[in-house]
């Protein structure tokens, strides 16, 4: 097991925010806590570098039981804080991460992935990237230029001396450029690692995203497609299903207790295990292993589901949207099931079972129509014509 430390830079002026960023709340936790917890969960010890407004941040570190080091040269810029953090690294460090506190929504799974990669390779520098290209995964030679580079870089402890000796021109990025030969770019499933929190508008956005973190973002769904090398025709099918879901969600009143993001990621990911026997359950297992158990139920039930009592659920909408799409084209429930029944006309038991399925699908459609107050079949098929 590698000994790893995370240098969290919290020494800046927060000038565009106008408030002390590290102690702002993102949901139940402060920004600093959110970020520090991601490292701690991955087995990494955070070291917080303070500077401007250090009393407030040191107080917060104390509350969270985090080590804080003060950078008296914080006005020299972020690189001086990087150096202060490096100076505070214990001698037993094998690996260290560096990230500003302004990027608080890094997933713990990203840090774990970087650590695992560091353990398996001899890379000196590992940058996490998000590969959210829509049609096909990026080939490795394009990771550096076309992947979206996020935080934190993962560095071998031997780089500490180089950082302490460096004069700071161009910052850490410029220094790391000298190690291109031993730099790796690791695709991870994390769009939070790209999100800065500099302005009050950013803060509002991050607060919103924070509440949805158990569910993959759209960008992360694309990254998952690439991670599992999902075939193009399934991507196109999934996008068509997602468009239907989107149309239905537009008609759902805002006060309905429902996570729209779960429906969208559910439709984007429902077929990630297509081709594997019992692909719905296999997909649910797969997404759980990738770190997003919240969408697993939607995937597990997308081919077979009975309507429940009460308000319409996310899983029901994913199921329903999938039934309105055949390949990449819109169709009605009846036509879809009738076609299947025609295929199995010779075996009455199968026809009966399909009949049963149709009834179940219609029951869910009925629920969704009650919730939206809309004739969904008319809405979706009329649109198809236009």
């Amino acid at each position, binding site marked *: 097991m590698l000994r790893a430390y995370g240098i969290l830079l919290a020494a800046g002026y927060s*000038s565009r*925010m*106008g408030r002390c960023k590290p102690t702002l709340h993102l949901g139940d936790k402060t920004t600093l806590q959110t970020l520090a917890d991601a490292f701690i969960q991955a087995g990494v010890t955070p070291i917080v570098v303070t500077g*401007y407004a250090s009393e407030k941040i040191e107080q917060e570190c104390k509350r969270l039981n985090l080590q804080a080091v003060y950078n008296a040269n914080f*006005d*020299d810029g972020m690189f001086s804080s990087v150096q202060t953090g490096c100076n505070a690294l214990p001698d037993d460090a094998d690996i260290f991460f560096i990230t500003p506190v302004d990027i608080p929504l890094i997933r713990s799974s990203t840090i774990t992935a970087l650590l695992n990669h560091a353990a398996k390779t001899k890379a000196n520098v590992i940058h996490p990237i998000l590969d959210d290209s829509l049609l096909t995964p990026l080939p490795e030679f394009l990771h550096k230029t076309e992947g979206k580079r996020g935080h934190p870089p993962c560095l071998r402890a031997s780089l500490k001396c180089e950082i*302490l000796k460096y004069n700071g021109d161009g910052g850490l990025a410029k220094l790391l450029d000298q190690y291109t030969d031993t730099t790796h770019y690791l695709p991870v499933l994390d769009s939070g690692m790209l999100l800065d929190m500099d302005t009050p508008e950013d803060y509002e956005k991050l607060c919103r995203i924070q509440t949805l973190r158990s569910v993959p973002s759209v960008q992360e769904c694309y990254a998952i497609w690439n991670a599992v090398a999902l075939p193009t025709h399934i991507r196109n099918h999934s996008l068509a299903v997602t468009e239907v879901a989107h149309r239905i969600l537009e008609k759902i009143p805002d006060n309905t207790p429902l996570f729209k993001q779960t429906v969208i990621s559910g439709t984007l990911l429902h077929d990630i295990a297509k081709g594997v026997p019992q692909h719905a359950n296999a997909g649910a297992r797969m997404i759980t292993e990738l770190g997003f158990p919240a969408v697993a139920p939607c995937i597990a039930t997308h081919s077979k589901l009975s309507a429940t009592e009460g308000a319409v659920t996310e899983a029901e909408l994913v199921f329903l949207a999938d039934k309105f799409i055949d390949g990449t084209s819109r169709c009605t429930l009846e036509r879809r099931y009738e076609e299947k029944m025609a295929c199995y006309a010779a075996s009455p038991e199968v026809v009966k079972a399909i009949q049963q399925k149709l009834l179940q699908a219609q029951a869910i459609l009925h629920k969704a129509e009650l919730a939206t107050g809309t004739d969904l079949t008319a809405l979706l098929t009329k649109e198809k014509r236009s």
Partner: protein
Amino acid sequence: MLNLIEESPKQQHVNRINPLDAQAQQDMRTEAPISQAQIEAWQLGKLKNVCSYARENGTFYAEHFRGLDFQHIASREDFSKLPRTTAADIREAPLKFLCTSQDDIARIVTLATSGSTGNPKRIFFTQDELDETIAFYNNGMRCLVDAGDTVLALLPAPKPDSVGTLLAEGLRSLGAKPVLNQDPDNVSASLALFSKHAPDCVVGTPAHVLALIKLWKHEGGMDSPVKSVLLCWDASSRAVRNYIEKEWNCHVHTHWGMTETGLGGAVSCAHSKGMHLRETNIYVEITNPETGLVLPDGERGEIVVTTLTRKGMPLIRYRTGDESHIMTEACPCDSPLRRLSPNIRRMALPEGTPDWFRFITPTLIDGVLTAVPYFLAQQAQYRVAPNTLEVTVDMSNNSSQQLTCVKELLCDLVSPLYNAPDILCLPGNHNKKISIGFAKRKICIV
């Protein structure tokens, strides 16, 4: 019709060899390149000499160093065990520091005290020492300018041996042309000289240079002729340095020095943000303020200064009350002269100041306010009750809207702080004059 104007690119001044090295070689009487170890050994010899000299010739050090053995000093650590000298010692009896006859003194600088009580500090210089300063200005300015360049100096030069005059002499001896505005608080006068002479280099305090740029921009200035700027006298924030570099597309150098060091102390070369020390004239130690012992390079502590060559009024282990550190990263100019970080701050804060006081400095406020178009300069004072930071803003035009903008920026600046003060913005001058002067700026407490 199209007018094609051919623009000649600005020649950036880059010296391959640090000009201060040549001076050091000359002082150490060697022609070969010198190493840090050689400088250290040379300095130790000089330190022992100056200690003996001061004890023999001046009454203060006769008392201060009574019974001490200087010959056993073999390292920087040994030297740092000697007792220190304070500003209070000089204030109390400046004449006791004098080691020559008063007839040899060519100039006396009187420094008003920062507190309201006590005598002012008086510092004596002989003609040789003034010549040394001119030589340092000559070599130091070679880091920034070439022969034939025009230098606009926003520095006082009311008397023959004042800093502006000494700088002008240093510049003339390297073949550059000095232009002086002796009243830099009059920003329109600075701008008139700037427009008339199109200087290659501007020297002044961070506040005066900033005010000049702001007014120049306000009056439509574009494509500055300036290739380098030297900020002296006072601390500068990174934001102010960056702003100057960006607006004038020039390289900003910083200078550190105090009257006690003979005005010149350290200056940054063309490559670096750190300031190379004038090692053969003054010896700088970064010390633990409690014990006075020297700290390893890279660690922050109090700057303690010893003059190496001064005959009239040598100062040994003089406590400056300022905090900085020796930079450890390599400088591309390869000079063996150690570098002082430009991040220099007062150590002791006045009593009764809140925690945030150490973060908010005049130059930091300037840096934030560069974003305001009409802004020229500001003075801040802190009112303890009610907890308020009062900022008087000099602007190039009277604009209540921009004053509101100033207030917003300052509120954003202080709000992350613990016990943040309220901000009160007051309109200052809007006649293109500012009220900065040459005292080291600080936020007064009322």
